[in-house]
């Protein structure tokens, strides 16, 4: 039981980060039907910037309280990512808005390679590690452990999601964004400044990515220039799982994917241990004797689950859990 609860907590933590990244994918997709392939790299830049600022401030020994240092890291990462999000849209996507779908996807791949290697040049080839500046007390609930960082990540992501929901459903910009995602031309005729709405969508998505970057950086205690690709893919899978273009869907999909992944990693070894199956164990008595095992797939297959979920969703329910059935607008 405690493994179950433990993996649930780990999954929820990871899932909240996925959810925030997935929001960035889903907002952009909802408005211009583009998979912003480089979004994962924005998360990476956020993590790298925040960690280097935090390391620098810690190393300077000015005597700032740790909370201020972390906040300063976030405060530097957000504008940096926003600038990247804006620049990316302006340079690589806006000129191609009317081009065939393949074109912006290919530029997005190009942008993500460029971002990765610029990050390699600016920061370092080696992983940046997160300095231990704050105590990270671990609490115990019913036999499972939850750390303060995990609580902060889950709590922070709830706040971020609430803020985004408010922005989209209660502000003028939010109304403009929803109008644009309904129909770009008509929204334009109604006086919505389309270019500005699309730019702000990218910028908001990038700000979310920065926050997610800080979260994942503190959670794993490490940031690396290649971390964005896999994270981005998983978050995209989460967005598709929830129904791409749907905000609540991205949140749900992110959390679900995190839990599926953690549970999968926790239990796959047990499920694929052939010694657990009596009729096979009988054939391999010498290997299975004395509690021996014959595990086909271990937890090192953790990364596979996101893709399996993605492929399964796309085959059985392409519109996702909460998505509406959309016609092919190619």
């Amino acid at each position: 039981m405690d493994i179950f609860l433990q993996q649930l907590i780990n999954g929820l933590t990871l899932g909240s980060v996925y959810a925030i990244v997935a929001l960035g994918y889903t907002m952009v997709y909802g408005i211009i039907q583009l998979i912003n392939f480089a979004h994962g790299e924005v998360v990476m830049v956020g993590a790298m910037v925040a960690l280097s600022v935090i390391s620098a401030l810690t190393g300077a020994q000015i005597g700032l309280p740790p909370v201020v240092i972390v906040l300063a890291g976030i405060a530097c990462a957000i504008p940096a990512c926003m600038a990247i999000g804006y620049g990316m849209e302006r340079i690589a996507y806006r000129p191609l808005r009317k081009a065939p779908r393949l074109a912006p996807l290919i530029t997005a791949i190009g942008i993500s390679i460029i971002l990765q290697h610029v990050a390699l040049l600016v920061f370092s080839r080696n992983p940046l590690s997160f300095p231990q500046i704050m105590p990270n007390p671990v609490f115990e609930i019913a036999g499972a452990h939850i750390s303060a960082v995990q609580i902060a990540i889950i709590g922070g992501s709830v706040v971020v999601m609430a803020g985004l929901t408010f922005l989209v459903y209660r502000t003028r910009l939010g109304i403009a964004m929803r109008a644009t995602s309904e129909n770009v031309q008509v929204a334009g005729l109604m006086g919505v400044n389309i270019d500005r709405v699309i730019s702000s969508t990218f910028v908001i998505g990038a700000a979310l990515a920065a926050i997610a970057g800080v979260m994942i950086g503190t959670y794993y205690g490490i940031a690396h220039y290649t971390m964005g690709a896999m994270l981005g893919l998983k978050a995209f899978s989460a967005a598709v799982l929830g129904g791409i273009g749907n905000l609540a869907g991205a949140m749900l999909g992110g959390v679900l994917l995190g839990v599926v992944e953690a549970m999968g990693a926790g239990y796959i070894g047990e499920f694929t241990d052939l010694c657990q199956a009596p009729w096979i164990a009988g054939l391999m008595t010498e290997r299975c004797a004395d509690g021996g095992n014959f595990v086909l797939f271990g937890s090192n297959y953790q990364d596979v689950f996101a893709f399996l979920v993605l492929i399964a969703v796309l085959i059985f329910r392409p519109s996702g859990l909460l998505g509406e059935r959309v016609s092919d607008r190619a």
Partner: protein
Amino acid sequence: MMRLFRGGKDSPVAARAAILLVGLALLVLPFALAQAGTAWVRITNLAILFALLALGLNIVVGFAGLLDLGYIAFYGVGAYCYALLASPHFGLHLPFWVILPIGAALACLFGVLLGAPTLKLRGDYLAIVTLGFGEIIRILLNNLAQPINITNGPQGITLIDPFRIAGFDFSKPERWFGLMVSGPIKYYYLLLVVLIVVMVVNVRLQDSRIGRAWVAIREDETAAQAMGINTRNVKLLAFAMGASFGGIAGGMFAAMQSFISPESFVLVESIMVLAMVVLGGMGNIWGVVLGAVLLSFVPELLRYTVEPMQKAIFGRTLVDPEVIRMLLFGLALVLMMLYRPAGLWPSRTRRRELAPAKR
């Protein structure tokens, strides 16, 4: 061969002379390169190998317009198939003419397995799913060392047999007519022949009924369906054919390098092949080969120029040539899409589509 040269109809004599000259140059090339170092012959071989890969991907991306971001997985399947069936790892040493078809068929099977459920998806979803598929294959290659050691994990497989035909060994240097012919040079000729065969196959495919169906699907899937094309099967065929070309190239890669590891089959490689197709001109066979050659040689040239230059100016290497190479790939993808979406050497159809209507 004549069909490969479009200018052929206008002046046959000049065209024939040109073919003769190019052919002679290609025959002499490895010996000229060997003067600069065997490394350059190896680089040329890799360039041809990448041209083969790019031609395979071109069927999928260029002809049928399906963006495949996991293409390198098929290359990996072919390479591992060869490595497992012709190395001391399992103690199997089958001849290559047995393994290459197996590798191609296996890659083709994987292509169909991937394509069958996913090809009804819209293009951008397909791209992500193929990317995921590529990653799954890579993770499998890395982890299938336990509990039964199949792929030997990250260490890869070593001592893979070279190509051998009845005592003629492609990896051993030999003296022909007083000329020293090294292993890489032998492989060069083999690869060149394979490249020409694949190009001819591609040209014939392009003008065939299937090729026209692919282009029709790329241009407008709904219209193509209305014209009576079974879009699902035709798309599946593109996937399967692209995959089997990848499998063959993979087998040759394994034999040539005699060592493979999952390192060679990562996402970046998929993107590199895609960059070659895009740079050269999606859908144009000559353009794709040009793209492959350019993107294989420019980074090597950079390695030999940028590094000494940096050493001379700054006293040390500031920017790794590998990083410059990747930055160039990224820039090439972005700039090509922005300014020359049809590629450096666009196909005729693409040029016609993109040119403003004259009448």
